[in-house]
């Protein structure tokens, strides 16, 4: 009768506000990176290598003498690009696979078996395999991670679509004589939007982690591109010599994933507390 989830609401809301603020800051960084960063993120200064944070270089410099702050700011741009790309592929493919499978059960059986097979590969391995085939590159990183999360998204979309299909209003529409396209576009897709928004925020968050892992293994975005993962990968030997080089990009990855998770969580709680188990926070990793 009365939802028993309200207890965490205040704390949850504070966290969600923080998350939303962080996401906004990151988005602003991504859009206005060239204006926000005080220096060219690629400019090399051999005489200012590995300087610790100071007034000129807020986050210090790396071993090229490049300004870490500027690189971190520019990194948000790649993070956003990868996140958006991965979400687009994961959701686009996931919706196509999932909804088609739910609406055409026979075809669905086959499609979902394909998804099953892809899901039999642990995520990073699948991404790794795809990267190795496709070669390093921003697009290929996006594609590889996108395919990984497409499988989970397809599963979720399939599940939610099946549940929607069992809803009385679909029966009602069918009883009225509604055709397949009407069912799909008017009755299923709009109702998928909020769960998909939640899924999108989680995919966005975990795309950051996967991309960072690929970069770290040296199989992600080309190393000359300033991404947080590349920055970590390049400077991991300086963990004692120049700890700021690991601290800031690492924190950025964590914060971006964290804030998106928090936002997704809050939205899910708002939408339907019972969805909790349908969306695992981590999805696949």
């Amino acid at each position: 009768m009365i939802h028993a989830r309200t207890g965490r609401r205040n704390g949850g809301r504070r966290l969600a506000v923080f998350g939303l603020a962080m996401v906004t800051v990151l988005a602003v960084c991504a859009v206005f990176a060239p204006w926000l960063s005080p220096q060219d993120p690629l400019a090399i200064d051999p005489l200012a290598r590995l300087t610790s944070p100071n007034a000129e270089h807020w986050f210090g410099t790396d071993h090229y003498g490049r300004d870490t702050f500027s690189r971190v700011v520019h990194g948000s741009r790649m993070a956003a690009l990868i996140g958006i790309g991965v979400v687009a592929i994961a959701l686009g493919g996931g919706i196509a696979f999932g909804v088609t499978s739910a609406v055409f059960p026979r075809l669905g059986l086959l499609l979902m078996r394909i998804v099953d097979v892809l899901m039999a590969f642990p995520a990073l391995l699948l991404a790794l395999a795809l990267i190795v085939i496709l070669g390093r590159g921003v697009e290929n990183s996006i594609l590889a991670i996108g395919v990984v999360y497409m499988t989970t998204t397809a599963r979720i979309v399939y599940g939610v679509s099946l549940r929607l299909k069992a809803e009385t209003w679909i029966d009602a529409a069918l009883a009225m004589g509604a055709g397949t396209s009407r069912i799909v576009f008017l009755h299923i897709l709009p109702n998928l939007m909020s769960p998909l928004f939640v899924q999108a925020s989680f995919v966005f968050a975990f795309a950051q982690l996967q991309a960072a892992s690929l970069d770290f293994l040296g199989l992600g975005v080309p190393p000359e591109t300033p991404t947080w993962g590349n920055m970590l990968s390049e400077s991991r030997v300086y963990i004692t010599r120049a700890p700021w080089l690991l601290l800031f990009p690492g924190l950025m990855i964590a914060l971006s994933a964290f804030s998106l998770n928090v936002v997704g969580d809050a939205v899910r709680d708002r939408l339907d507390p019972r969805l909790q188990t349908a969306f695992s926070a981590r999805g696949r990793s």
Partner: protein
Amino acid sequence: MMGNAAAEAPLLDVEGLTVSYSLPSRHLLGLSRSFNAVNQVSLSIARGESVGLVGETGCGKSSLSRAICGLTPISAGRVRFNGSDLTSVGKVERTRVRRDLQMIFQDPGGSLNPRLRVGKLIAEPLEIHDIGNRKSRRRRVLDILEAVGLAAGDAERYPHEFSGGQRQRIAIARAVVIKPALILADEPVSALDVSLQAQILNLISALRLKLGLALLFVSHDLNVVRHLCDRVSVMYLGNIVESGPTRAVLDSPRHPYTRELVASSPVPDPDRPIRLLAPSDDPPNPASPPPGCRYHPRCPHASTLCESEVPKPEDLGSHHVAACHHARRLGRTEGMGT
């Protein structure tokens, strides 16, 4: 010619309708089993008539109504509606014919897509059947909203902004906006509180009178059926065991199951307590019905004949039909009404 023929023939004529569901096989390589949720049921409704379909959970009443609406595939039998055989006509024709057959569901919230505004929801049947233009549809929506007791402004709101009773009004508005000939209502008031239930029952009655609708009313509540329906059919385990004029069937039931049902139904009168006619409430398993008369394991009147032979429907006069070997013996003398 056409008009005459249609007037004489029943609006809905269901003959030998069977709905079967398959079950996973017991053994890995065994044949898949199936059971008949609806077993060779025949039923007809004339124009403007209201017929009640009564039974308990798992008796097949929902499967029957869903099959008539085309939501569940039919395994055998025929459904004629408005002169067309819905089981044999093409898809386009079937959609056209179905225009005159609309459905109302039990759960007033669930039958309305939460993402669509009420105006859009009500206009949906008009859109599907391509009736009128945007403007005329809009007008009809507003008219019908008023007819069901809602305000014109409600067209812009979403279903979740309404209470249960109001949502059922919306569902009814949607069902009647297209001016159908028959409404199939599957337990439309059982989820509502008694004060709202009365409002909705009154609304259905009023609309029926105004629009000359025929009604197939599926319910487990004898009081409601008694109130609303001209005729009633009682289902047990996929079969119609008794049917006839409401008063005749419910006041002097001839089938032992109907008698049990009537005796079990509580009446708001402390002087008319419920009575137990069957020895137990052992639930029937629809997937493996007993041989012979399906009711015999619970029946206080069962004889050896009942264990082996399926009773045939028998007309006991004035269209009162019962499928029981002992229907004549269980005569009016043991009438149930007080």
